[in-house]
């Protein structure tokens, strides 16, 4: 066990490895080109199953240690079977996961010990959009809110700065706040 001031903060994030990756990518930019993948297979009704196992990055095919599977469906209020969360809830899950993971990483780099981090994420949606009843209402969320309760060895300002920096570096936050090209093909 080491006793340096650095090692006393442990949020379980290997910052040295992340900074090392930044260094490596700086020298070899193609290492940074990643592709993330998922499949989605219809089961019945609005129930579908998604499998995630492989991705591409660091110049090679990569794999999670196991295949992950998710059921997606809609609740009974939509006359569906509720075999899983709705796809739009997955988006909230993704945003929370991305921001919370980011907070841990930024806190580690800034030598801030976290004790607890909890986000409550809400997305407001007007169903007139997806039901095709009002062309002025978009299908997606009209407003997404994330509320963090964080207990850490830091001032309130430092905690706010953590949360702000995490948003700045978050892929899902970027995807949700900026337009993204999406192409859907049938093969």
């Amino acid at each position, binding site marked *: 066990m080491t006793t340096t001031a650095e090692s006393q903060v442990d949020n379980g994030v290997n910052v040295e490895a992340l900074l090392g990756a930044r260094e490596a990518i700086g020298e070899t930019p193609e290492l940074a080109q990643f592709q993330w993948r998922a499949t989605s297979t219809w089961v019945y009704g609005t129930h579908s199953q998604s499998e995630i196992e492989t991705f591409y990055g660091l110049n090679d095919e990569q794999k999670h240690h196991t295949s992950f599977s998710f059921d997606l469906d809609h609740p009974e209020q939509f006359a569906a079977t509720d075999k899983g969360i709705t796809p739009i809830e997955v988006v909230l899950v993704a945003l929370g996961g991305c921001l919370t993971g980011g907070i841990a990483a930024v806190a580690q780099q800034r030598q801030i010990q976290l004790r607890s981090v909890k986000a409550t994420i809400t997305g407001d949606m007007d169903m007139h959009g997806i039901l095709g009843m009002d062309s002025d209402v978009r299908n997606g969320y009209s407003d997404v809110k994330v509320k963090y309760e964080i207990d850490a060895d830091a001032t309130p300002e430092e905690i706010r*700065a953590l949360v*702000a920096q995490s948003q700045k570096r978050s892929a899902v936050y970027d995807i949700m*706040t900026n337009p993204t090209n999406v192409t859907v093909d049938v093969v």
Partner: protein
Amino acid sequence: MPNVSTVVIGAGHCGLAMSRCLTDRSIDHVVLERGEVAQSWRTRWWDSLRLLTPNWMSRLPGGYAYQGDDPDGYLAAREVADLIAGYASQCGAPVQVGTTVTAVQHDDGGYLIQTDQGTWRARSVVLASGACSMQVLPPFVDQLPPGITSLTPDQYRSPQALPEGGVLVVGASATGIQIADEVHRSGRPVTIASGEHVRLPRTYRGRDILWWMDTSGLLDEDYTEIDDVRRARSLPSMQLVGSPGRTIDLNALQALGVRLIGRLAGIRDGIAQFSGSLPNVCALADLKMVRLLDAIDIWAASADLDETPAERFAPTLVPAPVPLSIDLRKGEIRTIIWATGFQPDMSWLDLPVFDRKQRLIHDGGVVTPGLYVLGLPFLRRRKSSLIDGAAADAAALAAHLAGHLDGVTARSSA
């Protein structure tokens, strides 16, 4: 072919500061200038532009400084040009005006500098052609629907020259906020699109914010001593205007009636799309400003300068809901001004000294021994891009250059 120890490219404040340092070291050199001395300050900027730093900060090597009776004022662009021209003549700088450099290449341990007035040979070169020679534009700038006037800041002169009607100012750094302010006051309703920005009050605790940053040593922070120099070098310019006591931040603009909107993310089918990240870019800027003011307060206490109390400013007001799109075909916006930043133009430098994004690679202004650059953001210190930053940077790089020439001379005579 003329042959000198050093060719300095650009006769702005940086090139002339270097010239002065070279003269002090008796290093023969020439300063090549495409136009006149201080060309950009004469021709490039809008009518109302004033220097962002107070007059007392206009100091150059050799004891040259602003001598007027308004040390706390801010020079107009034309006055900056005159100040720099006065420096050139006082120093007797060997400036060759009307000479545009077209290529710089390696040549037998030195450099060949090709210009529209002939070719020079030199053992060392100093790049001082400015950090703002080229407008940075987003890739979708040509997606505008017809009927919209599109201007870069160097095409903009005054609000009166714009068509009547709404104006979208893209970018909220020094250029964007200044233009947004005066255009909105002219009766043309302005929408300002803001990504990350650097918020600062013009005055703090009774003094210019730059007085605090200068006196406390913040502007002298060295590039080797800060955490992330890449990040520091890519910071947007400070939201300041050269006007005594006037802060133009996003709250001031909104109080005037300017509409605040997120970063312009794209234009599709005539519809401008804006990022939903406005609350966070405002939070980042507010937090960063508070950290700066905290640092100033700590220093002020340690220096017994706390006769005026600390101040804190209201967080940036973010409108709710923030609009995410504007239909540019509907006539609400008649003009777009791209205050999206500048970068140096080094396209004539035929040397393998650029990274994959065509940014010059340098270590504190040393590109390679014998090749130097001045005036870029945080080149060696936080103040490197200010007029007041040229003295220390030019002195340090002139010392390196002299050492290089000595080495070259020693080798060739050995």
